[in-house]
């Protein structure tokens, strides 16, 4: 934060410096290709991780950058998943257009609800996001004729990707598809965060009352970013529906909303890679632990949460950044 004051006179330069690609970022994205070679048996898990990372990235935009705590973000994930699932059930299984339709629908609902979201803060906001998420969950549960209710959506059939790549059992196509979408959306999110709009979002997080006073309309910014986050969450949900060819009521559940908050906090909220790192650690740990006993998993995730809040308030990436800063100042 100290260098911010020095560059305050040249905001463009500051943003450009932030936006420069670092070697470690390039290394990270190259490393995401490793599962194809090293762990071909885990490609299904890898595609799930990529989807979860995308979902966490969407939450990062509103929670990490704009400071809007949502306990109902799974609403948009579920909307995307059900949209993609239902249109394929009714005979249109083309994946890319399914993704587009799902994102448009999630974005529309996100835009409509953003007018409510932007009006509230604090506990009322948490409860309203929670309530809207639960409402949608119950609605999907009741609309048995459309969603299959608690039995899940039956008969989802996805065509070949680009008319060529079949969604195979080993997950080659699933992972490649999810990873490419994740990377493209990440580029958009990265550009967004390093724009003046992204800077305004951080301003809203720090002080939402002062922002309008310096000429930045908080509410319209919140509406915009909430809609964008809804679109991305919808894309993530649609990806899950398409790669697994199933949609269950769980995609809308409170558990999924809570999980993604945990993932983001674990990785580090307000950092572009926070959701990504959190998703990798969370999903791999769950894959390992829930094999033993699902109840132990609750125990470990609970302990992890307590430990992160007490010892690592800025998540794993925040802790690493603090370590790096200390190491740099010493040398």
């Amino acid at each position: 934060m100290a260098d911010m004051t020095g560059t305050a006179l040249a905001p463009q330069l500051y943003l450009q410096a932030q936006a420069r690609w670092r070697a470690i970022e390039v290394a990270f994205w190259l490393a995401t290709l490793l599962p194809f070679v090293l762990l071909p048996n885990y490609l299904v898990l890898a595609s799930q991780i990529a989807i979860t990372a995308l979902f966490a990235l969407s939450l990062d935009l509103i929670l990490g950058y704009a400071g809007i705590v949502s306990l109902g973000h799974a609403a948009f994930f579920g909307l995307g998943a059900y949209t993609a699932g239902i249109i394929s059930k009714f005979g249109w299984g083309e994946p890319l257009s399914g993704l587009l339709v799902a994102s448009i629908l999630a974005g529309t609902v996100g835009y409509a609800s953003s007018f409510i979201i932007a009006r509230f803060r604090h506990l009322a906001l948490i409860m309203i996001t929670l309530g809207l998420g639960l409402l949608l969950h119950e609605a999907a549960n009741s609309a048995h004729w459309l969603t299959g209710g608690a039995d899940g959506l039956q008969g989802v059939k996805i065509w070949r990707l680009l008319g060529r790549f079949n969604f195979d059992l080993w997950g080659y196509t699933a992972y490649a598809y999810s990873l490419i979408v994740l990377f493209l959306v990440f580029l958009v999110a990265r550009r967004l965060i390093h724009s003046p709009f992204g800077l305004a979002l951080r301003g809203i997080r720090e002080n939402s009352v002062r922002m309008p006073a310096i000429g930045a309309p908080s509410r319209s910014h919140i509406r915009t970013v909430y809609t964008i986050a809804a679109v991305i969450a919808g894309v993530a949900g649609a990806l899950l529906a398409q790669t697994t060819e199933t949609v269950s009521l769980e995609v809308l559940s409170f558990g999924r909303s809570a999980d993604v908050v945990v993932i983001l906090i674990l990785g580090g909220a307000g950092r572009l890679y926070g959701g990504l790192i959190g998703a990798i650690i969370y999903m791999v740990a769950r894959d390992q632990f829930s094999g033993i006993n699902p109840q132990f998993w609750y125990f470990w995730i609970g302990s992890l949460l307590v430990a992160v809040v007490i010892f690592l308030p800025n998540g794993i990436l925040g802790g690493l950044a603090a370590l790096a800063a200390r190491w740099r100042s010493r040398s």
Partner: protein
Amino acid sequence: MIAPVVGVLFDGFAYGMLLFLLSVGLSVTLGMMNFVNLAHCAFAMLGGYVTVTLMEAAGWPFFATLPIAFLAAALASVVLERVLYRRLYRASELDQVLLTIGIAFISVAIAAYIYGTIQQPVRLPSYLRGSFTVMGVSIAVYRLFLVGVSLVITLLLIAALEYTRFGAQVRAAVDNQRMARGLGINVDGTFAVTFALGSGLAGLGGALAIEIIGLDPSFALTYLIYVLIVVSMGGLGSIGGSFVAATLLGISDMAGKYYVPEIGSFLIYLVMVSLLMWRPAGLFGRR
């Protein structure tokens, strides 16, 4: 024609009283310290398991276990408050939410580890079982007992809050924490006692709830949502508000499940969201 409606109203009211017992402690502590304690229902669950264990393993009578359920929950909450919660009084809501939901997760895992995931039975004394009929309305004895207990506790709470020195300190701390500190009130100490009392009441509620809504490890998370609805609808720190909100929720949930079962819990979530949009600080909230 009237009798079934009255029956549903009564059942809903009894259910609402249960929700009130479970949530009143959270309402007061939230109003006082603005501390979002999502582990509140874990204390309720602890109370429930204490009652079950004492009855099954030690053969205690139902009534003797209730004070122990209260004390166990209060004690556990004090330990957690001293060790973990107090570090986060000035932290963001998000941190508080995460820490306490983490504790709730741990409690779920521990309960499942010790007791398994099955529903726990409770053997009520014979005079609390069965039901009787007044003017065509069937009234379960246990629900009547529940309403009685809750009303007595409500009156005691209101009297304690209105007419004792400690109650005045609590009210001052809820209204304006900084001002109360400035006047020399030991807000931290008051808070610790209030917190223990509120958690103890939740533990008692958990023990009384077994007969009505059952007890399994997911209790800490399932009923958390109901409790949060009561608290946010009633307004933070308001006992009267919690009472009204719990009654409203109990009756609308029960009526919804009787008359329009196909929409399930849709109704109560709709009531909550519309109420919060109309009054973000709750029915009786001042902030």
